[in-house]
């Protein structure tokens, strides 16, 4: 149960952070006319290609006292980054990056240019246009980005295994817990935990998709535009 709550806390933090840093980055990726943009797009997609254990190993090295992240963190807080909840959040943000960015970019790009131009002609600045025109029309994409990064973080295993250190209540997430139970042949406990995870995830995803697809699209949109 502790592991499940930890996973949910981790996933919520990760989606919140990705929402905050993802919006401006996705906006830039969607509307910038810079020629070298494809390079940044490739970098964003990289975590999809790298095996989680490889990404995890690189992170572990980077977080170590000789790595750039580790040194910075040590200077700021006086302790290492690996085996901490913050370290896990950072690793998960990187690992789930494309899952948040790509739906956002697709949604922003899907907004009709004419509406954006009309808004500009009516005297609205860029931020106001984003807030009143682009964002309300992109709500399904934003929700998809949040749900995907949340779900991806809950189901994450390899990266957590590599940088977590399996500390109960700190880094022992539900996927690690289930794996441990399977490894020690406690199949009943593994089953119980896995089923609970499955049920909660299904319920969560159904609610979000239902709200997103049918009932709420207009409600959401008007709420955001207010």
């Amino acid at each position, binding site marked *: 149960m502790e592991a499940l709550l930890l996973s949910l806390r981790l996933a919520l933090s990760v989606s919140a952070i990705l929402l905050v840093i993802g919006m401006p980055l996705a906006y830039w990726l969607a509307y910038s006319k810079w020629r070298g943009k494809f390079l940044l797009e490739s970098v964003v997609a990289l975590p999809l290609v790298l095996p989680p254990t490889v990404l995890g*190993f690189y992170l*572990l*090295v980077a*977080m*170590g*006292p*000789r*790595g750039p992240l*580790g040194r910075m963190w040590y200077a700021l807080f006086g*302790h*290492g980054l*690996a*085996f901490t909840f913050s370290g896990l959040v950072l690793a998960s943000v990187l690992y789930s990056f494309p899952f948040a960015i790509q739906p956002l970019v697709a949604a922003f790009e899907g907004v009709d240019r004419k509406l954006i131009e009309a808004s500009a002609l009516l005297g609205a600045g860029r931020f106001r246009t984003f807030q009143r025109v682009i964002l309300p029309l992109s709500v399904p994409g934003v929700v998809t980005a949040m749900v995907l990064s949340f779900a991806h973080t809950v189901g994450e295993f390899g990266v957590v*295994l*590599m*940088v977590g*250190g*399996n*500390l109960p209540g700190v880094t022992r997430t539900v996927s690690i817990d289930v*794996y*441990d139970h399977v*490894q*020690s*042949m406690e199949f009943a406990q593994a089953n119980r935990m896995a089923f609970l995870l499955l049920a909660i995830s299904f319920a969560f995803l159904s609610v979000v998709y239902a709200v997103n697809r049918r009932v709420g699209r207009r409600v959401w949109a008007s709420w955001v535009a207010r």
Partner: protein
Amino acid sequence: MRWGLRILFVVGLLCMSAPYSKPQVREIRVAAAADLSFAMPDLARQFEKQTRVKVSVTYGSSGNFYAQMQNGGPFDLFFSADIEYPRKLEAVGLAEPGTLYEYALGRIVIWAPVDSKLNLAMQGWQALLEPRVQKIAIANPQHAPYGRAALAALKNAGIYEQVKAKLVFGENIAQAAQFIQSGNADAGIIAMSLALSSAMRNGKCWEIPASMHPPIEQGMILLKSARDKDMARAFLEFVLSPTGKGILTKFGFSIPGTNSSSYRGLDRGSTPALVTTRS
């Protein structure tokens, strides 16, 4: 140009058919625990030289192999870091009766990177109590045999309560080693067989006396589903031969029956007289 292409085509065909036209090489398939990553290549090479039989080895966690073998995993021999797994395979009738051997005992060491300020040879256990040691990596005692041994040793040394909050757990002994090597943990308890590997050999290390932890019994067994039983048996015998034992000793295992110090359980007072140290 035309001819060039044609030649290329023919050469290509020859390349593709080459592996199939060769006479079948005899081969034994070995599932080996990760602590054998360094000893097994040597064992296999020597055996191949003697017999011309190819030994193809897959490394992994003993528990994973056990689960695979219960579901028909394609192996002839199983080398487990915990003799319980092959014992269970024998009990459920998946292994050839009478082929279970305890071929070695695992040894554990306290290990720290070469640039660490700890003096393991002098301090031994005390090193782990130093304030500069913030994280100590061990393998997960829930399912890794070396992790269980490490935990038992910490308890026997009487420092478990003091270091409990510093412990981090690797999924297996190799990952625990990685935690220390990358500098994220300051020290840890790992298998001697890993500490002797080329990547870690220059680190600091202090062997935990065998009397302070339950024996880490390495067990091997011949599986019923083996394709070439005679050859597989020959390999078992090779591992038990003086040559095989020599290789195992060289790579950080001890041979059962030859070690004088044995586990005395929760007997904290008895520090063994003979302790090998390296620094």
